[in-house]
């Protein structure tokens, strides 16, 4: 998820503002940085490609749900959505280091969602008991005022969602597109708070005609279809960017040393500020059931877990595709091992430990304690599980920093005055 913001390097990586000092990270072992970034781009192409494939499967399931709404068709669409999340989350490690991904990411994975703007929401969420928003969402209203501006929403199309509802320039945008918009339409609100249960939208919300529930089923169907189509076309764009001649691939291959930095920056930033901080610790601090990421479907544990797998993928230079085949090649790990085998072993161990800690959350969730229940005040077991995940990610960040050092990534030397040549020489 993103807050439609530029995300940044992990604190540790940024502090110095790092670049490669020239003589390092050369091919003085069996592994060449150019090969490593090519593997990275291959994994990018495969991961985004799988995200696209599974989004197309979701699209097919949505089409089926729309054609013949039923309990089973809705369940199938929800399953397809869950399946589609796994490769997408593994792609998140490509954020932060690659501007092309960062600029694009807000369209597909933004958060929090303006759900009251999209569809009906439960009246109990309004303190007054009277919820004017129930009548003011896009699905209920062909003409709507958003942030004080009149919007013609008579036809719900991917274009309307992308340019009018989701905001023109990524600023001041209402979040109305991407995985979470589709998730909200498939599940509905999770009204169970920190108790058991996910969203429970009836399939009849997609029945056009007399049996329609929730009102405006034709427009809900149009929204679901448009949002899904938009997701598919957005993923097409990013999958292409990592293929041969793609812009994202070209960017990392143009300067392999900068590409290495992109890999480590993505790993460090996702580990620390994003996952450990924003997604996990903040939710725990706020005891907020919906500060979790996949809040309507209770799929958050999988999102966290596959973030962890994604970080392993890019470090070890190996990704298992949806069809079971492997994409692998010369890895960043090999390069680090040449420089310092201990550092490599340590980072591998820390990545394993993170996957284990996130796996424990997944196991507990699959055993019946959903992620939102773990966030409940007083749930010591849930708090311990999440805290263990946070701690593993924080520890892993330190190991990533050691790899940065081992590869000879170092602070920019600013030349100039005496005090800068010796940055420690401050007045104290």
């Amino acid at each position: 998820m993103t807050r439609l913001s530029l995300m940044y390097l992990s604190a540790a990586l940024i502090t110095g503002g790092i670049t490669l000092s020239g003589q390092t990270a050369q091919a003085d072992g069996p592994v060449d940085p150019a090969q490593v970034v090519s593997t990275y781009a291959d994994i990018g192409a495969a991961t985004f490609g799988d995200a696209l494939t599974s989004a197309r499967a979701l699209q097919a399931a949505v089409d089926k749900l729309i054609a013949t709404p039923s309990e089973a068709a809705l369940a199938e669409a929800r399953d397809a959505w869950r399946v589609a999340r796994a490769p997408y989350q593994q792609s998140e490690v490509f954020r932060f280091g690659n501007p092309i991904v960062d600029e694009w990411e807000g369209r597909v994975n933004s958060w929090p969602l303006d759900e009251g703007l999209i569809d009906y929401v439960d009246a109990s969420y309004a303190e007054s008991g009277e919820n004017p928003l129930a009548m003011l969402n896009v699905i209920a209203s062909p003409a709507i005022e958003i942030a004080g501006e009149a919007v013609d929403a008579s036809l719900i199309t991917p274009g309307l969602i992308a340019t009018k509802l989701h905001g023109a320039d990524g600023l001041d945008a209402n979040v109305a597109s991407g995985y979470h918009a589709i998730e909200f339409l498939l599940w509905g609100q999770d009204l169970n708070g920190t108790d058991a249960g996910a969203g429970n939208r009836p399939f009849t919300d997609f029945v056009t005609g007399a049996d329609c529930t929730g009102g405006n089923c034709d427009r809900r169907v149009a929204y679901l279809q448009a949002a899904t189509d938009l997701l598919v076309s957005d993923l097409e764009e990013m999958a292409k960017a990592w293929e041969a001649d793609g812009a994202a691939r070209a960017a990392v291959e143009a300067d392999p040393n900068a590409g290495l930095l992109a890999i480590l920056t993505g790993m460090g930033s996702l580990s620390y500020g994003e996952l450990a901080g924003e997604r996990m610790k903040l939710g725990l601090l706020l005891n907020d059931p919906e500060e979790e990421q996949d809040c309507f479907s209770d799929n958050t544990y999988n999102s966290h877990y596959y973030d962890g797998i994604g970080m392993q993928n890019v470090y070890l230079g190996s990704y298992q595709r949806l069809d079971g085949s492997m994409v692998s090649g010369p890895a960043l790990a090999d390069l680090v091992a040449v420089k310092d085998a201990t550092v490599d072993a340590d980072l591998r161990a820390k990545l394993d430990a993170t996957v284990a800690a996130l796996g424990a959350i997944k196991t507990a969730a699959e055993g019946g304690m959903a992620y939102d229940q773990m966030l409940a005040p007083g749930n010591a077991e849930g708090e311990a599980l999440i805290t263990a995940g946070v701690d593993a990610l924080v520890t892993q960040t330190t190991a990533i920093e050691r790899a940065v050092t081992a590869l000879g990534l170092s602070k920019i030397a600013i030349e100039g005055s005496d005090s800068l040549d010796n940055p420690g020489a401050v007045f104290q």
Partner: protein
Amino acid sequence: MGRREWAGRWTYVLLLGLSSVALSFGGRAVAQPATPGPLAADPHLNMVPLSPEDAARARAVLAPPADFGAPQPFEALAAGAATGMGAVDERSFTHPSPNLASDRRLDFELGKALFDKLWVAAPASTRASDGLGPLYNARACQDCHLRDGRGRLPGPEGDMLPGLVLRLSLPAPDTDDAAAIAAHLGDHALGRQLQDHAAPGLKAEGRIAIRYTEVPVTLADGTVVRLRAPSYEVADPAGGALTPGLILSPRLAPPMIGLGLLEAIASADILAGEDPDDQDRDGISGRANMIPSLEFDTLVLGRFGWKAGVATVREQTARALSNDMGLSSPPLPEPWGDCTTEQVACREAPDGEEPGIRDGRELDGQSLDLLAFYARNLAVPARRDVDDPRVLAGKAVFYQAGCPACHRPNFVTARLTDRSEQSFQLIWPYTDLLLHDLGEGLADGFAEGRAVGREWRTAPLWGVGLTATVGGGQAHYLHDGRARSLLEAILWHGGEGQAARDQVNALPKEERDALLSYLESL
């Protein structure tokens, strides 16, 4: 400037306008003497006095430059040990101070997450993220403070990029009656600030309409610089018309760097720079703003905001949450933010508060503390080209023109027992944090605390040379972004700044360019 104009106005003015919090200050809101005694107390800092040796070292290191052939010791380290040494790029303002203790790094990240957090209108499933508005200017802190830099101006097509707000006020009455003075701030219809966005179902208060008139200024060497003189109006006002006589004070979101260090300067050191009656006859006076604190039961020295209307980073954060985003927090508990009693639909709209959770507010005290921690610990980037001969020549011009009289180059912060990152640092903010009359051209007619319509707090200049770098190519200066270049900004200075401005006007091109190179290196 008629510095005498101030004499009848040394009563301070309540900032809180119509908010109920204002009432709690009502009893204390009496005319205050000009003596700064209570202001020097620094209730927000846990500080220990400097030892005589440290005080002597601080005095020595703060001495004006003896010559301009080389940089002063530590001059390049704009924020002492909190100076950012990273690459110069559009994220230069986003980094934590490098001396941040490693066990506080995650707190910085959590604060950043809250700073970047996109808020939604209530009701939403994301209960900890709802409560926006109902009337608001922006949905996330970083929408205005772009990459922790300054705000952008609304585009020519009226697209409503957040970054500039209009504060609202009625003319201050000429009286010592504190209640009467307090009542002028804010508008009975629209409140303290114009909110140009509204939650679904509500109408925004209006749009900011700016009209610029080009004003050519001819420098001594014949160069013509075109200034943009702005005029502000509210387009599509929600009530059909504005309250007659309403004063609009435009304010651009300022950069976020170094705020914790400015907060860590001992008040006594700032107050020592006051010279309200210009006894040294240098044409520069300088007065401290004095304001009632939201956090402490006392009057405090104002440091933050374009008129130094707020004392601490935490209070500034709470005010921005309330005014700009309509979010309640423990110091400012109204969930409707800036909606007045006349804005019934806004006050009755759903809010994001839940009893017993998050201190019962839309944003709890812990989150507010994290946001403030983040804002205190954004590194100030190191100076560039500090020993470049042209930059050094420009520095000499800066001093010869008298700029340091207000843009005071350096301070040594207090020795703090609980904020090691900010403690006893030699910093180079280029501000005295005092109010100065800048003349009619910049005046907004808006009184805030002790500050009158022509007075502004000296803006810190650290990081000013990175404005365009951080702003994605955009660079706008001064309180409302009217200046498109640093030279334009200088030429707008009047009042106490007039003499220095006139000197710049008279400079030969080479020296003027050197001055600008120096400013770009800050």
